[in-house]
């Protein structure tokens, strides 16, 4: 049975005002190939640097092999890194680079020679041992970086976008080589990338991140087939996301049509997001389907045709087929029940409130919030009047639970429900209920502080609301 090698507990990291990682929890098993996947700026490289020892968390604990390593210097960790753009030593040749770590261990010349040549053989670079670094191609440099990192036989290898600088064909070849090497060496890999294809191809486990939080952890198949949030669905592969309603168990309604699906456990008529992958949609004759539309545009992509169909509601669906269809043709669309993915909408706390001044809004006597309107599309704001009645919305993930002293207000935890990646914590604040989505463990009956960043408080005019409803 494999055991836990790396454990990250409640990791927070801020650079000045900016919070890069928010209450991050993750454990990694021995011999696992874990990929941290996310767009740039999601905190994945920062996380890797903290495991490597080049950054330290603002708060939280990092355990390696059961020991707390927060304050262990990088040179004292049994962890090696393959750096982005390789970071090879330009003053040493290939042999010198690979031998670098061994020379520090003061091993005998013969031993170093033998182990370096073994490592070079593993990356197919034996003949290049005396070459200077600046005469190597990108792929060769990548291999030297690999050899340099694995020669110390670390328990854990960190790889920071190691293939990002290479062309597509080489990248694919090296993906297989890396995966093979991981299997044969029996080393745990933590691999950072923003390339979803790379993540799906190589990993045992994919951790999808955005804005310093984990959105989903799972096998590549799980992540692809059953994305848990809109972001994951969009980020991993192409997909069409539509608003839907769970009519009852196994029936989801979108585009005004009831579809069979495999989902249960939603409340009746709950609003949901429906995710459909382009390869799961089938084009059929108009009379065989209730979802009809016109072929609007298409592109040929080698092995498939990508066809965009505008259905009667005006929404565009993307379909991948091997067969070509003429533009302007009216067609029907069908989908197998198991290919429909249904996702919960993100939780929202909605209240009615009264504006106190340009910075504060009052929801109840105990809930007075600071707000800051965030400019979205460059349009000027309409200032709210004092005493104006407004609708206040706060995403449950933006409700932060903290020490009572530093909080905006406090409340008592009434209930906790386990969701996929986090808990929904129901808190009562003097008669009003607020829900917080958090990965930290809390207990029913506790008193907790609550605070909400001013820019996360969404305020809208009640009148506008009615018009748009």
């Amino acid at each position: 049975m494999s055991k836990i090698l790396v454990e990250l507990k409640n990791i927070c990291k801020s650079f000045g005002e900016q919070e890069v990682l928010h209450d991050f929890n993750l454990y990694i098993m021995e011999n696992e190939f874990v990929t941290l996947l996310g767009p740039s700026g999601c905190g994945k490289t920062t996380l890797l640097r903290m495991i490597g020892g080049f950054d330290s968390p603002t708060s939280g604990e990092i355990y390696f092999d059961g020991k707390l390593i927060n304050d262990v210097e990088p040179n004292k960790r049994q962890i090696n890194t393959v750096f982005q753009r390789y970071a090879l030593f330009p003053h040493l040749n290939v042999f010198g680079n690979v031998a670098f770590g061994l020379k520090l261990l003061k091993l005998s010349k013969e031993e170093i020679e033998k182990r370096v040549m073994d490592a070079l053989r593993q990356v197919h670079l034996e003949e290049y041992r005396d070459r200077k670094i600046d005469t190597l191609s990108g792929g060769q440099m990548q291999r030297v970086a690999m050899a340099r990192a694995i020669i110390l036989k670390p328990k854990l290898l960190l790889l920071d976008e190691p293939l990002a600088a290479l062309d597509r064909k080489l990248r694919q070849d090296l993906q297989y080589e890396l995966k093979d090497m991981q299997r044969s060496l029996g080393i745990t890999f933590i691999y950072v990338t923003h390339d979803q294809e790379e993540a799906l191809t190589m990993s045992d486990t994919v951790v999808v991140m955005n804005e310093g939080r984990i959105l989903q952890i799972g096998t590549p198949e799980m992540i692809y087939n059953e994305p848990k949030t809109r972001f994951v669905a969009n980020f991993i592969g192409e997909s069409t996301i539509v608003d839907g309603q769970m009519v009852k168990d196994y029936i989801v309604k979108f585009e005004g049509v009831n579809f069979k699906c495999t989902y249960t456990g939603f409340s009746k008529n709950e609003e949901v997001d429906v995710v459909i992958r382009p390869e799961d949609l089938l084009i059929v004759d108009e009379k065989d389907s209730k979802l009809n539309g016109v072929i609007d545009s298409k592109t040929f992509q080698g092995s498939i045709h990508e066809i965009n169909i505008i259905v009667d509601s005006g929404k565009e669906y993307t379909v991948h087929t091997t067969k070509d269809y003429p533009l302007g043709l009216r067609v029907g669309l069908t989908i197998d029940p198991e290919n429909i993915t249904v996702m919960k909408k993100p939780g929202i706390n909605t209240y009615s409130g009264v504006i106190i001044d340009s910075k504060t809004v009052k929801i109840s006597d105990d809930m007075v919030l600071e707000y800051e309107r965030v400019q979205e599309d460059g349009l000027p704001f309409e200032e709210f009047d004092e005493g104006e009645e407004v609708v206040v919305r706060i995403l449950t993930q933006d409700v932060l639970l903290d020490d009572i002293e530093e909080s905006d207000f406090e409340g008592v935890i009434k209930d906790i429900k386990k969701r996929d990646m986090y808990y929904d914590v129901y808190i009562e604040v003097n008669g009003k209920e607020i829900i917080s989505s958090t990965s930290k463990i809390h207990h029913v009956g506790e008193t907790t502080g609550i605070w909400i960043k001013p820019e996360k408080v969404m305020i809208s005019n009640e009148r506008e609301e009615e018009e748009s409803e």
Partner: protein
Amino acid sequence: MNDVALAKRANRKLKTTKPFIIPYLVWIAIFLVLPSLILIFLALTSYDFSPNAEFSFTIENWKYVFGSEYASNVFWPAVIRSVLISLCVTLLCLIIGYPVALFMTKMNRIARGILMAFLILPLWCNQVLRIVSWRTIFEILNLNYNEFYIMNIIISMTAMYLPFMILPIYTVLEKIDNKVIEASYDLGCSNAQSLFRVVLPMSLGGIVSGIIMTFLPSLTTFEVSDAISYNTVILVGNMIYSRFQGTGGYNVGSIFSLLVVMFTIVGFVLILKVDKEGETLI
């Protein structure tokens, strides 16, 4: 674009930019090439521009420099003294300057700007003024005596040439990718190991430039010993300077100068060996 087209394009570019380098070429011809030729001419003849000088090819001058009593008692000891003082100055500059350069790469932008200003601003002030102010400092410290002159010369020269050691080393250090240094820690280096196995070897180009930029000028300064030791500590620079004061010493002085030029050329070749792109020379 293929190679031929590229070459053609480069050629065209050269044609359009060529006229603009003519002033510089003229400058070099008049003030570098011509004087060098004159030096060679003077070294090989008895003619020295004095009113009744006679012209004939001779090796007497060379005999004088390499064989005479004057040469062995005055000139060569001065050469050795100059080399030793320059070596001291260079070593001091390196020992003081390298840590400063290293520290500068780790400073924030504002602190670095201020330090850079401290390094560069004195260079804008006339060199002779700076030397004289050093003498004043030594006077205040009650060090302005015969037995301290060599030490005083070394201190003031070190202060004068320190920026020329720091700047090339800093230029090289600043270009080192921090990831490479992190890689050294990652592979097990302590701070000291990282410095000696990665940072120092990678900054070798800067060190060599720094050494040459301090060693060669300090080898030929005459104004420092002139002002600090009232011309009692004789260096190569002083010997050359005195030969070209008035008349009569041009031929031997030329040989002194040519020897220094040879030193410079050797230094330049050394730089090119270490730093092929010549990027540290700036």
